């Protein structure tokens, strides 16, 4: 009989390849007036950080790491020789409550290897959430991983207890899945996401009508994860897939997870992990899609399907579209300000507000702590009119490249992206 410490070792280790860590975006609820604990609805809280730079906000574990599937990138695939373990629902419930009460975490992220069948596995996962909510009045954050092939009734039940549910697409094309994850099917995943979107829409639609009956409780959002570098998919394909999911199923987040070496590697996987900077650039591009009104084709096209690893995608775009610049910070519309390298959403808002009362000078921009070196060639201000020549010069790109010896360092801490907002990539949502 395995003790709880050993099980936690195995089932936390087995869960760490899922990058999702968000604990924000839930409906507002708290424990006042109950005997339980838990609250959600504010900004997500990262309760700790591990030396991989990732935050710890949720107890992230698998119910079991035994699995019928054989996804080659996954340490838990049936062909792997890892030690298998399995929690009982009560063990996960107790761990969640014990950790939560000590303020180590702000919720539970529960996933599972697939045993016996999709429905059977879902039932185990749901039982944990049900006990937390109904027996212990737990009002903390719950994220449940769901299985596309599980029955709709079970997905509805999971959504009833969870704040967030998710299904991982893992790879952006069926072709890649056929090779690396033969049990997975993109069409079925998307159809399940569509069903979940319907449930979420229902929840919000009914809320808007004043005299409508209370909407069925359901999670407030869904997310997914894509693996980067395990197959030959280009960034254009990955971002295209993400964009489709954001649009068609209104996902809150797509997580990108650079494939990293695992114990028990599979024979058909690349041995070399992709540079972590690629994952970082994908997150930056994702941000441009969601908050800066960029289109996938502007960031990664058929001609240049992969992101420039040396420069952030907004700066790359600006260098390819020099005719757009310089932009006048005192006159340009908001959507054009958002295109300026070095200028994030928040500072665009600040500029738009402040320029109603004053003509902005460089000193004003410096006071906003903008990245002036990056910004200067692309803007005009009351006292700044860069020479057109500078912008046309081919050396402009070279100016922004990190010096070669710095590249290694930047690997650990990639060059600060155009928008400081990107920092929240690690901590979850805006």
């Amino acid at each position, binding site marked *: 009989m395995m003790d709880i410490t050993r099980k936690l070792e195995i089932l936390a280790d087995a869960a760490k390849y899922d990058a999702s860590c968000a604990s924000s975006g839930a409906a507002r609820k708290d424990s006042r007036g109950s005997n339980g604990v838990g609250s959600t609805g504010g900004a997500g809280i990262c309760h700790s950080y591990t030396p*991989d730079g990732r935050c710890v906000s949720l107890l992230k574990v698998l119910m079991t790491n035994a699995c019928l599937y054989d996804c080659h990138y996954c340490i838990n695939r049936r062909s792997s*020789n890892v030690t298998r373990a399995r929690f009982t629902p009560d063990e996960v419930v107790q761990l969640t409550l014990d950790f939560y009460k000590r303020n180590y975490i702000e919720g539970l992220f529960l996933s599972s290897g697939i045993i016996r069948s999709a429905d059977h596995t879902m039932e185990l996962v749901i039982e944990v959430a049900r006990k937390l909510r109904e027996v212990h009045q737990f009002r903390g954050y719950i994220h449940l991983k769901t299985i596309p092939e599980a029955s709709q009734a079970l997905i509805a039940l999971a959504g009833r207890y969870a704040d967030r549910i998710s299904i991982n697409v893992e790879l952006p094309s069926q072709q890649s899945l056929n090779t690396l994850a033969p049990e997975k099917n993109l069409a079925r995943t998307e159809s399940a996401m569509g069903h979940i979107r319907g449930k979420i829409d229902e929840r919000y639609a009914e809320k808007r009508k004043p005299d409508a009956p209370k909407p069925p409780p359901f999670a407030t959002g869904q997310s997914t994860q894509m693996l980067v570098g395990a197959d030959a998919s280009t960034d254009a394909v990955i971002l295209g897939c993400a964009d489709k999911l954001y649009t068609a199923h209104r996902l809150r987040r797509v997580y990108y997870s650079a494939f990293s*070496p695992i114990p028990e590697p599979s024979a058909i996987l690349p041995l070399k992990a992709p540079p972590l900077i690629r994952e970082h650039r994908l997150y930056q591009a994702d941000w441009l899609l969601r908050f800066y009104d960029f289109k996938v084709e502007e960031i990664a096209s058929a001609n240049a399907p992969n992101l420039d690893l040396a420069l952030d995608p907004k700066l790359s775009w600006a260098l390819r579209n020099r005719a757009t610049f310089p932009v006048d910070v005192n006159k340009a519309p908001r959507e054009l300000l958002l295109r300026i390298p070095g200028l994030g959403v928040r500072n665009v808002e600040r500029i738009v507000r402040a320029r109603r009362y004053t003509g902005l000078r460089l000193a004003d921009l410096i006071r906003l702590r903008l990245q002036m070196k990056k910004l200067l060639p692309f803007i005009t201000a009351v006292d700044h009119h860069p020479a057109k020549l500078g912008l046309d010069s081919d050396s402009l790109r070279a100016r922004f490249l990190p010096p070669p010896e710095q590249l290694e360092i930047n690997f650990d801490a990639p060059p600060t992206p155009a928008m400081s907002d990107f920092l929240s990539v690690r901590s979850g949502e805006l």
Partner: protein
Amino acid sequence: MRTIVIEPEYEAWRAAARRLLAQGMAPEEVLWTDDPQEASLFVRETPAAAVQEADAIKVPAAFMDLARSVATHTDARRWGMLYRVLWRLTRGAERHLLSMATDPDVRQLQDWSKAIGRDIHKMHAFVRFRLVGVDTTTGREQFVAWFEPEHRIVRLATPFFEKRFAGMDWSILTPYECAHWDGNRLHFTAGVSRSSAPDEDALDDLWRTYYRNIFNPARVKISAMQSEMPKKYWKNLPEASLIAGLIAESTGRVQGMLETEERAAKPAPNNTYLKSLHAMNQTEAAAQNHESDPA
């Protein structure tokens, strides 16, 4: 010149500021201080009776929020700066002032406020409760935590804990002020020393087990960790004792993974569900091929 002693609290500043504003006292005319000793060197202000006029002063709500936050900052210049911006907003007829993030005074207040926001956020994140007992009459579990905030944020930060941990009794002890929750009332007492709080909890070991195993040695990013969890917090975090060891082992662990012999795929087990899944995949693949068939 008039000197105003502020017990370091927002309400005291607010009352004094309203009075001064009503009296038309310009910012340059007022010296603000947290330190009663220093204040005794100056003439103490005598309360004036112009409060009625002060009530009529309209101040943007955003300023009051900003002031409430900045008031908890430890920088001694905050009272004066708050009064100067208040003056400019009202007497100075710059009602739009808070829209000017480029204004040096506004910028300073926003910087202070941001530091307060971060301090509160880190308190919400890094407080670690330790179980000290169970109340024999109510049956409620009792927890105590120790935390060292940078600013005087206990009153701003603790309503969060009341909402989150309503079902347990808790105290959060800090060097300058302590907060206590008993299920009915949140109340505050004077600060205490570190030794008043327990050092450990029986669950800390299990928490460290989790921390150790959720870490991925194949993607070490120490600077990212430290920018969000600066070292000054480590001494009160039970998991922080593992950090050095995890970093030191990581290279060897990854090398071990890379040297592991690759494992060939195992045949599928005899499972009904798996068979149905494979059958579904084949049907769907066939259907797709058919669709893309130009004939």
